[in-house]
């Protein structure tokens, strides 16, 4: 066990491991690229959906059930399914990652919208705001903390799951895991896993700090 950690330590700290096309820097960049793009696409789908459901109050069951759908979704299964249907490309990976991220975004956006004080919405309408003005000037800004939580959760989940890109022969930090498994190189597997976890934790910390800074004027 001690040997394993010592090897892991030298794997992570050797200069050669960090450079080149199979180096950590390059793999990390790939990993982040997949994750950010997938989260961005998911946000483009999930945000309008959550805002619409929250604003109109229609289709709330979609927002609520999406959460459990998201948890039950077999990500690797989805990759394989889309891969079989559409052939080898990054598309199956993005489909799976987006499908994973959308529920967290929709559910939290919806939750943020429903948490807006009904008195405040009533006052907004009563002052003469139109529907879109209530949405963009009142509901959206007030729901923002929870919306950001949703985006953060989605991004963390996607970062942790983006290893599957390597499963269908693409890059990212998952490369170390799958290559390590194929080569029975436990240190490499572990190194990849540790890196993925570290990235997820660091991103989570950064984003929650940013959130706290942005919403420092809020009570709740």
């Amino acid at each position: 066990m001690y040997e394993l950690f010592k090897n892991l330590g030298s794997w992570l700290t050797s200069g050669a491991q960090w450079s080149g096309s199979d180096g950590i820097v390059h793999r990390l960049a790939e990993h982040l690229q997949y994750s950010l793009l997938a989260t961005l696409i998911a946000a483009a789908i999930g945000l309008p959906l959550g805002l619409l459901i929250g604003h109109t109050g229609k289709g709330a069951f979609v927002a609520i059930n999406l959460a459990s759908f998201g948890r039950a979704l077999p990500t690797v299964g989805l990759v394989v399914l889309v891969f079989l249907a559409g052939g080898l490309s990054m598309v199956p990976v993005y489909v799976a990652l987006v499908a994973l991220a959308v529920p967290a975004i929709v559910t939290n956006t919806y939750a943020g919208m429903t948490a807006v004080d009904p008195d405040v919405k009533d006052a907004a309408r009563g002052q003469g705001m139109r529907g879109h003005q209530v949405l963009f000037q009142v509901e959206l800004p007030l729901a923002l903390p929870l919306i950001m939580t949703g985006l953060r959760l989605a991004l963390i989940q996607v970062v942790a799951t983006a290893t599957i890109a390597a499963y269908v022969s693409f890059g990212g930090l998952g490369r170390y895991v799958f290559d390590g498994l194929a080569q029975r190189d436990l240190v490499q597997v572990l190194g990849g896993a540790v890196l993925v976890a570290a990235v997820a934790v660091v991103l989570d910390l950064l984003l929650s700090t940013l959130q706290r800074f942005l919403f420092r004027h809020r009570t709740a």
Partner: protein
Amino acid sequence: MIQFDAVHKRFPNGTTAVHDLTLDMAEGGVTVLVGSSGCGKTTTLRMINRMVEPTSGTIRVGGQDVTRQDAAELRRSIGYVIQQAGLFPHRTVLDNIATVPLLLGHGRRKARARAAGLLETVGLSAEAGKRYPHQLSGGQQQRVGVARALAADPPVLLMDEPFGAVDPVVRTQLQDELLRLQKELSKTIVFVTHDIDEAVRLGDQIAIFRTGGHLVQCASPTELLARPADDFVAGFLGAERGLKLLSLKTLAAVPQGPAPEGGPWTLVLDAANKPLHWASDDAELPVRALKDDDSLLSALDESIASPTGLIARVDADGVLTGVSSRDDIHQHAGQAHTEARVAA
């Protein structure tokens, strides 16, 4: 100014909130809608700015049918204050007040300047403008709510239990300020409350509603207290409605004379002839000096508290002008009652 003509409101679940309401609210006056919860008073108020649409009948504001106007534009032309203030928690106080001017397309600079002026109007410091609503007390938030409603200088102000959530001391302050503001601004105010004392205090006209959305009586506070239409209204006004009536009459007509000499208690004055306290050989009791525009009710109260049965009368500067006796106050109280009850 605001006319309800045979207005009916049935909600989709079948309950009738307002039943065949015909009511005129005079321009520049305060109309208080009062009744227990579920009597349709809030629904009535909310139909004026189309937060609720009537099922049938017409509502006119300034002669114009509200349902023929664009709802958002209508609401911008009518001030709206609600119970919990409903301030926007993500905007500063100043920006909250500037809401309607901004919606009307006045520039940000102009809207903020207007908002800053209103802070003073409602009795808040300029410094409060930079704060966020949660940093203010309940009473201060309510002031901001009033300022926000006044920002575009609308002729009509709708107030839905605006002082319902603050403590009694602050409530009295806010009522005083509303009366003072109303003297300056002469808005047409529709005010919803379930507190009959508040209604008597603020209303030029009080409309009492009964469960099921029936308007039972609409009259001036004096008329309502002197001649309630039926047992329901009498019950709602409470057992002390005679005393409440006295709260509407002033002390001005009660005769006054010089303070009598002798007796165990004397009224002690300071160098400027302002009453200090009642004094006997071995005790002192506080005195509450009353001005001409104080109510008969407070005079009666003070005459009971006073050890001599006399009340000290002062001018606007607090200088003693004379004293009035318990008997004189009593007689005037009785007279006021009789007049109110026989008046046509």
